[in-house]
């Protein structure tokens, strides 16, 4: 119930391509879905987040698509660049007694020049 399942585990795209990373959850109490980007040796950095009352959110080249009925959400990176090569994590939480995030297992993205 508390898991967030993320796929694929790794992804290779060419520069300019649109990598798509998918996540699925079971707990319908989740109401906050952020995506984090992590470079080697660094902590995760917040990219973009969405709440279930909207189906899509864009910030720059990053877009989250959210399907509440399917309990799935995904990250699209438009016009991907080699500098986007990193590990991406989806996460989920529910507003309540804690600010606890449940993270997915991560997707290692490589953008080739």
């Amino acid at each position, binding site marked *: 119930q508390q898991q967030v399942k*993320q796929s694929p585990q790794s992804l290779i795209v060419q520069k300019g391509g649109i990598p798509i990373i998918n996540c699925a959850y079971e707990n319908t109490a989740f*109401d*906050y879905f*952020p995506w*984090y980007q992590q470079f080697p*040796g*660094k*902590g*995760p*950095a*917040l990219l973009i*987040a969405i*709440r279930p009352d909207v189906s899509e959110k864009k910030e720059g080249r990053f877009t989250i698509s959210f399907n509440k009925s399917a309990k799935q959400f995904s990250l699209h990176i438009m016009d991907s660049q080699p500098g986007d090569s990193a590990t991406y*994590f989806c*996460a989920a*939480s*529910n*507003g*309540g*007694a*804690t*600010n*606890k*995030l*449940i*993270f*997915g*297992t*991560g997707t290692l993205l490589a953008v080739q020049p």
Partner: protein
Amino acid sequence: DAGVTQSPTHLIKTRGQHVTLRCSPISGHKSVSWYQQVLGQGPQFIFQYYEKEERGRGNFPDRFSARQFPNYSSELNVNALLLGDSALYLCASSLWDRGLNSPLHFGNGTRLTVT
């Protein structure tokens, strides 16, 4: 403004020893959380502290403890270290108040190696 700062950046300990990790949150943030990130996996929630009180605890043994100080900085303590405790320990701060989701801002972590 400075982000979340953690110290030390790297640490090597022997099995059975104890360790203390330190975290300073972003100025104005009263909530501090600790996460453990094992290589190749997503971060796992250990603790959240808000206004010096424990607000949440993850599925970790009692060897793990933490506290938050009046200036909102925090310490994570791990006793009787095991090889499996080797991981990146992340601290995150936020403007969280009860019932509200607010973005977590992570530090760069402390890399703990237990030999």
